[in-house]
């Protein structure tokens, strides 16, 4: 069971318009790993996740989830996701926190079946995990950004996923809850064997918690365990990272001078 590949991307490339945003990515995520995904702004991290979740279709390459080509994959309750844009929803939306978290159970419940008491309890439990149960009946739009983020984390956890994908989940969350959140992730990973993929810019913290690190800028520049990453970080990676960032800024300037 352990070490079994859950996500497998082979030679995956993708572009929104003309330029490749993700290029020739090979990435395997194995069961039980806690993977930190890092890279500069615009390096394609969120896009890579969209591809992984079938929210965007790759122009080239193949993606398998739990040994199935993504287009045949249907076990969505196995996957929990917190989007980077989670709290860009319509803030006037008339829904309570509880209703939002229950929506995370849709895949688990299945078509033609209804929400019941058990699902409510499950949602309350997930809210308890992120210490938001007191807000269960509050309107989601009336919470602070960090509180909303915690609700979306609860929504991702509520279906008991075996793979949790988090795109900068702690942005706007206060220090106390970030620490608790990392502790929670650690427990989920070690005690329940949940596989984690987390995008973050907080390289220092992620290397303390993750088992593996992936560094990308359009393509994967580094993929290894945290120890290897720390060695790599000192020499090559800083250069690579810095170089990439410079190149990115350069491209940007070029675009402004000569818009295409």
């Amino acid at each position, binding site marked *: 069971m352990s070490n079994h590949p859950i996500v497998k991307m082979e030679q995956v490339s993708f572009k929104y318009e003309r330029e490749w945003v993700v290029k020739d990515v090979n990435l395997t995520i194995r069961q039980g790993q806690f993977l930190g995904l890092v890279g500069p702004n615009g390096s394609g991290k969120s896009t890579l996740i969209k591809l992984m979740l079938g929210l965007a279709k790759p122009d080239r390459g193949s993606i398998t989830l739990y040994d199935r080509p993504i287009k045949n994959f249907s076990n969505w309750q196995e996957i929990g996701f917190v989007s980077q844009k989670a709290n860009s929803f319509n803030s006037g939306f*008339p829904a309570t926190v509880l209703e939002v978290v229950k929506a995370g159970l849709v895949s688990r419940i299945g078509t033609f079946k209804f929400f019941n008491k058990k699902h409510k309890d499950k949602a309350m439990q997930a809210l308890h995990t992120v210490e938001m149960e007191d807000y269960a009946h509050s309107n989601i739009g009336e919470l602070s950004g960090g509180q909303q983020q915690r609700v979306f984390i609860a929504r991702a956890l509520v279906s008991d996923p075996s793979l949790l994908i988090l795109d900068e989940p702690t942005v706007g969350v206060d220090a106390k809850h970030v620490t608790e959140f990392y502790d929670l992730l650690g427990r989920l990973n070690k005690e329940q064997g949940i596989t984690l993929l987390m995008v973050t810019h907080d390289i220092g913290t992620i290397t303390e918690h993750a088992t593996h690190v992936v560094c990308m800028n359009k393509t994967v520049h580094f993929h290894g365990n945290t120890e290897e990453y720390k060695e790599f970080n000192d020499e090559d990676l800083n250069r690579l990272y810095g170089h990439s960032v410079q190149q990115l800024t350069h491209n940007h300037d070029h675009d402004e001078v000569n818009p295409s």
Partner: protein
Amino acid sequence: MIESFFQYEFLQNAAITGILIGIVAPLLGVFIVVRRLSLIADALSHITLTGIAASLLLEKKVTGINDWNPVYMGMVFSVGGAILIERLRKLYKHYEELAIPIILSGGIGLGVILISLADGFNTDLFSYLFGSVTAVDRTSMWTVLIITIMVIAIVILFYKELFVLSFDEEQASISGVNGRWIHLLFIVMVALVIAASMQVVGILLVSALMTLPVASALRLARSFKQTIGLSIAFGETSVLIGLFSSYHLSVPPGGTIVMVAVIILVMTILFKKVRTQQWIKGEV
């Protein structure tokens, strides 16, 4: 009205049809409003008018077509328009709302041509524009009943899918919800409800019955379920009081129903204001 209700079949038809659309129009309206697609109802009601004009024209020009109820042609056009809107929305991914004015103006353009070819406005058309308490016949009342049952059943059956799609399309997609299919189903329901409501409220005011009760409910509700409940309650109140006063004042029900809905809206806005102020005072 109560005695007349048992006396005249047309009143029964209008009242029962009114009660039914007082439920389904705001029910679908909730999903339309929260997705910021309020204008979709307008686009579809205008294309329904085109269908009605087409039916009236056919009736006039083609011998053998006499007692076609124009409502059915209206439904066909409305559903067709709904499918077109969905297609256009996919074509203009980043300007989804652009599909609405395209269909709306296209519908009016074609409608005007058809109406002129059918020799202009007549009383019939007037009652389609603003509704009528006398225009609903038994068959269309039954049709509306069937549509109502179907819509309620579908909304209950797909409640969680409709909710998650309205709140967060990405989440819906990774929950395995077939968004395209549900959108299509939903917009076809909207088209049918618009065509069904039209006889009582009138084409020009149908969208008001779908959106005004929801606008009122949004002032007061916390949860999504509450929003649905209040919207239906406000919609139903508007229809009942509106129909009653329409009959007594001899004015088209579309006008009275919408005015009641407007009064409810103003009342909820004031209520919320007062309550918020009380709350602020209470704090101090």
